[in-house]
C-alpha cells in the first residue's frame, strides 16, 4: 500500500475528516476552528462539510472541556481543540477533577469518550506562556491517556486511535513539526491506543524520546555516530498507556539509557522512564541520563531560548559526554 505525502497539520486534518465521516456522533469544536479554519489549519474545510458538527466556541477552556465531557457521557464523540497546551492550565479542574474521574467514580457507567487535541513546545520567538511542554502533568493523572505524535504519519495514526478509543485521550501535537512532511497511509486500519516503536537501530546507547524531540534526536544521531556512538532511538509515542518493552530489551543490550524530552528536566516524564527501567532491570545494570529543557522558564528571544532548549547540538553534546563518563565509570554492566 503506498502512502500520500502530507504535512503533519494536513495529516491531522485528514484524521479529523475521517472521524466526522466515520462517526455520526463525532463533533469537533474549539476556538477559531470552524469559520477561521483553525489557528494552524487543522480543521480547514471541516465546517463547510460537516456543520453543525464543527463549530467555534468562545475563549472559554473550562466550558469547552466540560462540554466535551457532558456530550461524551451523553453518547457523542467530541474532539475538542485547545489552541496551546499552555491553555490547558485554564481548564485543569475540568480535565483532572471531571474528565479523569468520570469512568472511575461511575464504575464504568459514564464513558468519557473524548479527545483533547492540543499542540505544544517552543518555536523561535514564542513567549513563556506559549512554549511549555506539559505532558508530564497529565501523564501523572490516572484516568487520562496521553500521546505525542512525532511526525505526520504518526499524527494521522495516533489521532485516529485516540478518537476511536473509549478513553479520554490528550493528543499533544508539535507546532514546530506542523509543516514537516511524511508518507501517510490514509487507508490503514485504525490502531489500538498505545505502543512504542524503534525508529533507528544502534548498539551503544538507547535513546527514548517522544513528540518533537524524536526529530531532534534523529538529527543528533549522525553527530554521535561521528564519535563512534551508535544510538538506538525509540519513539515512546504514548505515555499512557506506556509501552516500555522495546526500551527494556534495548537497554539489556546497550546498558546505557538516555531519555530526551523538551519538557523541563525536573519532574519530566524522563524521570518516570528512568525509574521504571531501574525498577525492572536493577539500578546497577545500566547507566542513565536525562536531557531536557533546562529548569528555567522559556524566554521569547530565539537567542535565549536556544540556550535552554534541547537542540540537536546540545543533545549530541550531552549524550557524548554521558557516554564518556559512563565508560570512565565502568561500574555498570
Amino acid at each position, binding site marked *: 500500500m503506498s502512502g500520500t505525502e502530507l504535512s503533519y497539520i494536513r495529516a491531522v486534518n485528514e484524521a479529523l475528516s475521517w472521524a466526522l465521516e466515520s462517526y455520526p456522533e463525532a463533533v469537533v469544536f474549539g476556538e477559531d476552528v470552524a469559520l477561521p479554519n483553525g489557528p494552524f489549519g487543522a480543521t480547514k474545510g471541516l465546517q463547510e462539510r460537516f456543520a453543525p458538527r464543527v463549530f467555534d466556541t468562545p475563549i472559554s477552556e473550562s466550558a469547552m472541556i466540560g462540554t466535551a465531557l457532558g456530550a461524551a*457521557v451523553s453518547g457523542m464523540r467530541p474532539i475538542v481543540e485547545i489552541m496551546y497546551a499552555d491553555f490547558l492550565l485554564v481548564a485543569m479542574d475540568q480535565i483532572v477533577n471531571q474528565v479523569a474521574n468520570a469512568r472511575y467514580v461511575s464504575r464504568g457507567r*459514564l464513558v468519557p469518550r473524548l479527545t483533547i487535541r492540543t499542540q505544544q513546545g517552543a518555536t523561535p520567538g514564542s513567549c513563556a506562556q506559549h512554549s511549555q511542554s506539559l505532558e508530564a502533568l497529565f501523564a501523572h493523572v490516572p484516568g487520562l491517556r496521553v500521546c505525542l505524535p512525532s511526525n505526520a504519519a504518526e499524527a494521522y495514526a495516533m489521532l485516529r486511535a485516540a478518537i476511536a478509543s473509549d478513553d479520554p485521550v490528550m493528543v499533544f501535537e508539535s507546532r514546530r513539526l506542523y509543516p514537516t512532511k511524511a508518507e501517510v497511509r490514509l487507508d490503514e486500519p485504525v490502531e489500538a491506543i498505545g505502543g512504542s516503536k524503534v525508529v533507528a537501530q544502534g548498539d551503544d546507547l538507547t535513546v527514548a524520546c517522544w513528540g518533537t524531540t524524536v526529530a531532534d534526536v534523529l538529527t543528533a544521531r549522525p553527530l554521535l555516530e561521528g564519535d563512534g556512538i551508535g544510538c538506538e532511538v525509540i519513539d515512546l509515542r504514548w505515555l499512557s498507556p506506556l509501552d516500555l518493552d522495546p526500551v527494556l530489551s534495548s537497554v539489556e543490550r546497550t546498558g546505557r539509557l538516555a531519555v530526551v524530552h523538551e519538557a523541563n528536566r525536573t519532574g519530566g516524564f524522563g524521570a518516570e522512564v528512568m525509574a521504571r527501567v531501574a525498577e525492572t532491570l536493577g539500578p546497577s545494570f545500566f547507566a542513565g541520563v536525562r536531557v531536557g529543557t533546562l529548569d528555567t522558564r522559556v524566554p521569547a528571544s530565539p537567542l535565549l531560548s536556544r540556550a535552554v532548549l534541547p537542540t540537536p547540538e546540545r543533545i549530541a553534546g550531552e549524550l557524548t559526554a554521558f557516554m564518556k563518563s559512563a565508560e570512565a565509570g565502568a561500574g555498570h554492566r
Partner: protein
Amino acid sequence: MVRVRRFEEQLLGLLKAGELVGSAHLCIGQEAIPVGACSVLGAQDAVVATYRGHGWAIARGVPLVEMFAEILGRDSALCGGRGGSAHLMAPANGFLGENSIVGAGVPLALGAALARKLRPGPEPAIAAVSIGDGAMNQGNVHESLNMASVLELPLLVFVENNGYAEMTPADALTAVPAHERAAAYGIEGVVVDGNDPVAVAEATGRARAAIVERGLPVLIEAMTHRLVGHYSGDLQAYRPSGELEAAWRKEPIGRLELRIADGPSLEAARASVEAEVATALEAARSVPFPGSEDAGGHLYELVAR
C-alpha cells in the same frame, strides 16, 4: 419532600452512630427545589447537581436503598461506593451526578445540552443543572452561561440561593443577584420562592417550555434557606442568633402542610415514608461492601492488544 428529609435525617443518625464515615452535605430546608423541578423535568432530560444533591437524586427516582448503600460505602448499583455522599451518579435515571467542585457541573451540563440539541430524540430534551449561590462567583459558570447563550443550548440553570456560600453569608460575597446576572448573557433570569414546591414546579415548567421553544438557556434563582451546616460537622457559629428559628418557620414541608390543611392528612403519607426509608436502610445494610481488589478497576476501557 418528606422522603428526602427523612432520608437525610437518617444520614445524620448514621453519622452520629459512626456507621457513616466522613461527612455529608445535607439539603434540609431546600427540598422543594429538586422535588418541584423534577416533577416537571422529563426522563429524557439530564440533571446535574452539587455535593448537596441527595434531593436531586431521590427526586429523579434513584432508589433509596441504592442511595443508602452508596453513601455507606457499599457495593451499590450507583457507583459501587466510589462516589459516596458528595459525588454519586445515576446515569440510568438521567442523573449525571453530584459534583464536589463548586460550579463545575455547569460545563458538564452544557455538553449534555449540546448532545440533546445535535442528536435529538423523539421528545424535546434539555439539560438542567443545580448550583448554589456561591457558584455564581466561579469563572467556569460564567464561561458556560455565555457559551450556552451564544451556542443556543437547551440548558436550565437552578441557582439554589440558600443564604450561605459554604459558611459565609452569600450577600456579603455577591455583587449582583444571580437572576439579574442572567441578563448579562442575554438569557432570561427569574426568581422564585424556593421553599414552595408548587412555585418551583411552575417556574420550571415555564422555563422548560421557553428553552424548547426559543432554544436559549434560562436561569432560575430559587430563594431558600439551608437549615443545617455546610457539612454535617459544621458547628455554624457564624449564624446570628434567631436566624435558624426564623428560617425553620418558613421551611417547605410545614408550609405545604398548612397550605393543604383542609385536604387529606399528611400523617398517613409521613408514616408510609418513614417505613419506606427505614426498610431501604435495612436493605442497604445487607448490600455487601466492595472487594478491595476492585479499587483499581474501571479506570480505562479494556484494550485488547
